[in-house]
């Protein structure tokens, strides 16, 4: 597996059901950058906002 150091964050807005589906999808699509997008749009085209991958370790300084 290829390892890359990346950074990014998703900010979703929208309805509860869409938010849930977006969060589930977000685990499969690593953010391309600091992304703010409606949950509905993200569900439709997740590949536009992230690329397929898996977090293997993570460091978050602050929220």
């Amino acid at each position, binding site marked *: 597996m290829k390892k890359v150091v990346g950074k990014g964050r998703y900010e979703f807005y929208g309805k509860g059901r869409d938010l*849930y589906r977006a969060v589930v999808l977000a685990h499969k699509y690593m953010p391309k950058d600091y992304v703010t997008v409606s949950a509905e749009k993200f569900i439709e085209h997740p590949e536009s906002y992230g690329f397929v991958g898996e977090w293997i370790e993570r460091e978050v300084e602050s929220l």
Partner: protein
Amino acid sequence: MSGLRGKWNHYSILGITDDETVMLDFDNTSFKWVKYWAMRACGWFKLEGFIILKSSEKNYHVVFNRKVSWSENMRIVAWISLLSRNKGLTKWFLMQCIKGASTLRVSPKKDKPVPRVVFRYGSQGNGVAEFLAYRKIVRNIMVRMDSHVLERKQETT
């Protein structure tokens, strides 16, 4: 709620972002000191009320009730950061300025648990109620994802 007592099964950290609700993130600060600054800011800026959440040992979040503009929001946080001389809060404040909105964590993070409400003061019907409603949505997402992961684990074994 029982689903949240176990460990969060995911690497992700979930938070709530808002630019109209005044929020604070105090690191390495005693509860007494956090309460003092929350009370002082609440009175000085007429913020109606607030809740204090304990995010981990000596780390607290504050959410105020009155909705404000983003510029007033940052004016208030800057005032508290400057007068309280809290390094953690100042750093958090600068990061929120860069992002253009305030974010507080609502999921566990590494060995830190889910932040829980430890103190309430004054009116709670506006910003506080909204924050708690969103927090409930995020908690439901975490519970659903936890059960989803458990189901998948059971399928594979």
